[in-house]
């Protein structure tokens, strides 16, 4: 894969926003917001509008999922319950094989996620980087790290504070779909968002 392009334009942003991490290298990759800007948050305690449709959540392996967010007040729900929602307010984004680039579809999803994070301004999330089973386990740890950082940096470019965004790479250790073909792999190459405090 190619490493994502690094824009000189965002170096200033990088220095200021990533100062907390003491990062003097690998400036975060940021992307200009898609035309039209971030999606408008839904009013009141209602859930945000549905984001542009990503690939469906992977096959359910075991327990039936908790029902959707429709009509639920996220402020009243526990962190665990929110994370278990089938129709999570924070949608995953998907990547091409061996890539950490944020494509246009993913940008729209991240814009919707950013809107949710702006609506729930105390939420802190972990961005998990995941990979499909191809490639060595060790290499995929680094690839998952790059994917998580790509998603984090794009959210930061949309105005989400760095201290609300943690990242972790699971490499290829936690496939969402255990299959061994592209249908499964495409679901497993993702950045996944987990609420950790609210």
């Amino acid at each position, binding site marked *: *894969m*190619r*490493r994502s392009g690094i824009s000189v334009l965002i170096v200033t942003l990088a220095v200021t926003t*990533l100062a*907390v*991490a*003491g*990062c*003097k*290298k*690998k400036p975060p990759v940021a992307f200009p917001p898609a035309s039209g800007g971030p999606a408008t948050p839904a009013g009141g305690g209602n859930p945000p509008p549905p984001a542009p449709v990503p690939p469906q*959540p*992977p*096959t*359910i*392996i*075991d*327990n039936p*999922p*908790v029902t959707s967010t429709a009509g639920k007040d996220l402020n009243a729900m526990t962190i*665990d319950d929110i*994370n*278990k*929602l*089938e129709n*999570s307010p924070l949608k*995953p984004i998907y990547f091409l094989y*061996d890539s950490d680039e944020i494509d246009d579809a993913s940008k729209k999803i991240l814009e919707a996620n950013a809107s949710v994070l702006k609506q729930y301004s105390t939420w802190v999330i*972990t961005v998990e980087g995941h990979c499909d089973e*191809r*490639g*060595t*386990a*060790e*290499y995929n*740890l*680094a690839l998952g*790290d*790059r994917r998580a*950082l790509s998603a984090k940096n794009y959210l930061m470019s949309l105005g989400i504070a760095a201290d609300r965004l*943690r990242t*972790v*790479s*699971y490499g290829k*250790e*936690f496939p*969402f779909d255990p299959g061994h073909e592209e249908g499964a792999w495409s679901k497993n190459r993702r950045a*996944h968002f*987990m609420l*950790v405090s609210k």
Partner: protein
Amino acid sequence: MHRLQVRTALMGAAVAALATIAVPVATREVVATAQQTAPPQQAELSVTLSSTTKRTVLAVADFVVPSGDAEAAALSKLLSDVLWADFDFEREYSLVPRAKTASFGAPARPEDVAQQPDWGSSGAGADAVVIGTVTRSGKEFSVKIDIVGAPGSPAAGQIGFSSLYEHCSLANPRFCSHSIADDIHKKKRGLDGVARTRLAFSSDRDSARMGTRTGVLVSGKEIYVSDYDGANQQRFTFNNSLNIHSRWSPNGNQIVFTSYQTSFPDIYVADLAQAGRGLRRPGNGNDRVQNNQAAWSPDGSKIAYVSNRSGNYDIWIANADGGDARNLTNHPAADQNPTWSPNGQQIAFTSDRATGSTPQLYLIGISGQAIERLIDQRVDRPTWSTLGFIAFTSGANFGHDISLLDLVSRQVTVLTDGKGDNGSPAVSPSGRHIAFTTTRWGKEQIAIVDRRGSDVRQITNTGNNTYPSWQPIR
């Protein structure tokens, strides 16, 4: 003809006797009473492994047990089966299949071998026969071993080796045979055998569920420890998260590994004797300081590991307790997989700095000096052997193989044969075998191949098993 330089550390008998062994399985040092020629310092021996010279053909007889009960008979068969397998593994001798001599009985004395011509050239074809007599004493037993020239051989009837092994435990009789094999290999062949060493690896076999990912339940992996031959597989971690990258301390008493038990990867150190307890965290990690892939220096005084604390993956070095941590590679590319040179002065690692995505093999001095790319090809999970080569994962996508880089000639040899996807090599302490992960039998399993690329053995068969590491000789 292959010629292997085997570095051999000869321990004094007193040291060997004092060394305490090892949980998870309760084992105690088996004491050999035969005279040990024990220079106080390390000696270097040269062992010639020949594929053209005829090896001595060895048969292992059923051992004699004093009582005729079924338990004793089973013990006898187990001890000789395991000893046979240990010899077969190291390939110093050519072994007569056990089934071929099953009807020959259990010789109690060297004369009994001499009187049974079937052992020799007119039958099983052995040059020599290993015989043993077991004596039980409470929960312990001892084994008297003799190696006797087989009928028809030039040394027919002569005793070529004799030793008494005491303090064998009924709780783990396999360890007794392993001790005998290592002792005979040492004294007869000058070889540091690995029969008493163990493997550590990760497995999802107990499939503890880590939590929910929007409707999908995710399984964790725990660290397990087994004998080198796959026997006695026992769970070592119990935290229901992801536990990977195990590596042994040079003294073989501790394991360092990466665990996600706080939701973020950090390196943990645990004593072999305290599975699941007493964890130490030399990386002092948190959600902003994530550490993984630790490896001890050969003298045990330092650790190298991967950390993202400077913003991306770099190789860091610290004292074994985590003190004086410093960034060794300090590069915006992803630097991973540190492995120490045998003299502790250099570290080999992988980096995608030249390619933007493909990891390649680099060498750096532990003061950060003299960085050098070793070969221009994709390399993952290098492991540096004391025998002057680095084992690594080569290839891409599903076509990974285990390869060896000779550090003198810079020649690369592919060890595995393209069957399945192969990765994460770990070199045995003698350098003669490589453990690795393979999918050739379906799920991910741990296998061992010898360093010529032959004699592949399956070590695990339950669940998915990955990231093997090989315990040093203690």
